[in-house]
């Protein structure tokens, strides 16, 4: 069985169309990041995040409306608390977030205790007969201001260093323009996911950073498979113009790109659909990343290498350099 038998799609010729699409998507992302901003999680902003389950044991007690919880918390000294449903509203599971950005003081253990007291006192019928620590409170995170900002810079450097290390590796194994454009394509992928999260207002958690790094790893993998083929085809057909060779290489590797992208996408989609609320956004980021990553590997990365070389008129030199490398 074969999905794509000897395809010959003009990826290189129609490349400006795809540049247009990419630029449009990047602009949308940029607008999202500038105008809506990023919703950094407690991991990075510091503060308290609690997941509470207020589903009463008694089935006759109706579910708590989110407004009630909001009113109660506002009245009791937490007007800045952000409250959201986790999963289906019928499950009465809420996330309560109190960020402490900008405030010099620590949100202390007392804040946590107070939060629990408020819930206990104001929703007696929902917590009755249930262990507050084990059943009502599903999760509480509390991050001090110092750790928050540290984690943010740590995450930033992790991504940057990974990218730099990969440029160097590709430079060493292929050629500098390949390294540079491969990484540019990665920025494209990461930027689009971040933009998506900004536009939808989803939280950037530590897990999302991990997802971004996974995408970085995955997408470069995809891109390199194509680069690799280009390197090999270049040696076989030294006389052909680079546009022809590049287009053939992208087509030759197309079925592999689609199949691997497909299996990885499917497993992440399973994670997204059935993996539970905790990794929902993580799986979403991976799914998006595979889509963007596959797209950029096929349509953007190698085309950018062509254009950079055409602009600088160094295509001969670049290709000589590339084909000289030992495998």
């Amino acid at each position, binding site marked *: 069985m074969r999905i794509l038998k000897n395809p010959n799609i003009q990826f290189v010729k129609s490349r400006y169309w795809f540049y247009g699409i990419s630029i449009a998507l990047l602009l949308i992302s940029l607008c999202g990041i500038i105008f809506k901003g990023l919703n950094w999680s407690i991991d990075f902003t510091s503060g308290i995040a609690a997941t509470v389950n207020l589903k009463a044991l008694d089935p006759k007690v109706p579910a708590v409306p989110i407004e009630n919880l909001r009113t109660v918390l506002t009245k009791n000294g937490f007007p800045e608390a952000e409250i959201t449903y986790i999963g289906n509203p019928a499950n009465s599971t809420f996330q309560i977030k109190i960020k402490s950005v900008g405030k010099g003081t620590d949100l202390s253990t007392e804040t946590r205790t107070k939060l629990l007291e408020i819930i206990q006192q104001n929703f007696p019928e929902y917590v009755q007969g249930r262990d507050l620590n084990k059943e009502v409170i*599903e*999760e509480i995170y509390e991050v001090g201001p110092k750790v928050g900002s540290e984690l943010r810079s740590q995450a930033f450097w992790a991504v940057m260093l990974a990218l730099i290390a990969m440029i160097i590796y590709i430079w060493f194994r292929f050629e500098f323009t390949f390294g540079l454009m491969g990484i540019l394509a990665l920025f494209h992928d990461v930027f689009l996911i971040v933009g998506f999260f900004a536009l939808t207002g989803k939280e950037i958690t530590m897990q999302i950073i991990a997802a971004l790094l996974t995408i970085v790893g995955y997408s470069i*993998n995809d891109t390199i498979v194509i680069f690799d083929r280009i390197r090999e085809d270049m040696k076989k057909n030294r006389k052909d113009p680079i546009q022809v060779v590049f287009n053939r290489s992208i087509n*030759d590797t197309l079925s592999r790109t689609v199949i*691997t992208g497909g*299996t990885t996408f499917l*497993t992440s989609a399973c994670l997204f659909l059935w993996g539970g609320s905790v990794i929902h956004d993580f799986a979403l980021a991976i799914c998006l990343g595979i889509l963007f990553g596959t797209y950029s590997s096929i349509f953007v990365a190698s085309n950018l290498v062509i254009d950079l070389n055409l602009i600088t008129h160094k295509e001969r030199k670049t290709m000589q350099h590339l084909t000289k490398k030992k495998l």
Partner: protein
Amino acid sequence: MKKFSWRGLFIIIFFCVTAFFLAPMVIPNLPSWWSKHHLKLGLDLRGGMQILLEVDTSELSAADARNAVEQNIKIIRERIDQFGVAEPSIQKLGENRIMVQLPGVSDYKAAENLIKQTAMLEFKLVAPQDEAKRVIETIDRNISSNLDKFPILAEMAKKDKSIMADTTSTDSLKTGEGIFSSLIRPGEMDFEVQYSDVRLIQDLLADTLFAQMVPMGYQLALDKADTENPRADRNLYVLSSAAQLTGGDLAKAKVEYGSATSTDPRIANKPYISIEMKREGARKFERVTADNVGKRLAIVLDGVVYSAPNIQERIAGGRAQITGRFTATEANELAIVLNTGNLIAPIKPVSTSIIGATLGADSIRKGTMAGLIGLIIVVLFMIIYYKLCGFIADIALVLNVGFILAMLTAFGATLTLPGIAGIILTIGMAVDANVLIFERIREELDLGKTPRSAVEAGFKRALVTVWDSNLTTVIAGIILYYLGTGPIRGFAVTLVIGIMGSMFTAIVVVRSILDNIVLTGKRTKLSV
């Protein structure tokens, strides 16, 4: 008999190692040296508490600071052991951080208190009333001339002035005059602080600027809050800052219960802690009590006065009691803390996370299910798309998942939720190496090569690509591991192990099966 091959040897080793570490998961009743290798679940999967503590070494020399963190870890471990937590994990993170993980703990508050209590036990003399009054007056004066350094107090002073302006015709009241003493009122023996002002006073006491306002040789301290009546007024003591005795003079502490008929209301029918001093400490105690009959000696723990009994006579023998309206749990905790000794340097929790056991169980169930569905989809796809070769790749895939679990066990890593996600993701990515190889073999077959030479050429060509593409991902994984924390690290480890496993299974195992089983004799067709 076939000749020896390195490939065969590696496959055998691969199988043995995987089987060895997976066995404890499946077979019960293995000998302990074997079954002790089991996959640990992370806190996010089994519930519990995690605290990241920062050790404040600012007042120690570099050598002492290094030592202090180690010492603190030892003390915390001892405390947790006495508290009784199964499989706690206490690690040093970076220069001066300690990560404590307590799986399965549900009394979060008690655990946290137990860990972070410095238990700086000190005995200090209480300043006599007239002296105390003078100290407060001095503080008032100092603050009023430095009012700009205390914005909250300045704000209060401004408000006071606007209230007073209505009643007093002359502007005699200088802004900020008597602002500190307005927060406290003289009680029977010491000063009293209303509940609504306790927070402010606590903040002031913790402020180093405020400490400069207090005359040399003295310090202020609140007494312990009454657990049963937390909104009651608190006492503020003026102490002479020299410690007469410290925790180092302590031999042991234990919880006792006062008899119901005891005449002392502080201990009647209530838990208290009796302490016994070391020989030297006992001597010091004797001298202090002899020199200060009639004065009061405050027992101060972590800057909070627990009790301040009057010294009626010289006390020999080195025994004392710490009373302070304890609950039984509090008393127990405190005794543990006193016995395990002072933390060398103060510690402060910088982040805490508590995960309910229900959420963890739910995550495992859902994660496993999502993984299984994903695995089945990929396995079916491979068989449909690559037929026999797809089936061989599926064997490699299952082996790879086993290998990841085995390696996580071997490295003593903990399986976290992102870790499970990493495994599931690797399932998708693991077939990549095989897809690359099979696509290459198909191309070679299309060129009219025989199955054997197509396999040969396909592997040879694809190998370079597999190597290049996977190595870059490994680079990302390694950086993630070094720069990441906690769950992220778990994810990086699974990712890297998964890639190694997939490369090995795809290149070595699949190749062997193809060479030795499928391509025997003179086959003219290969099912790919």
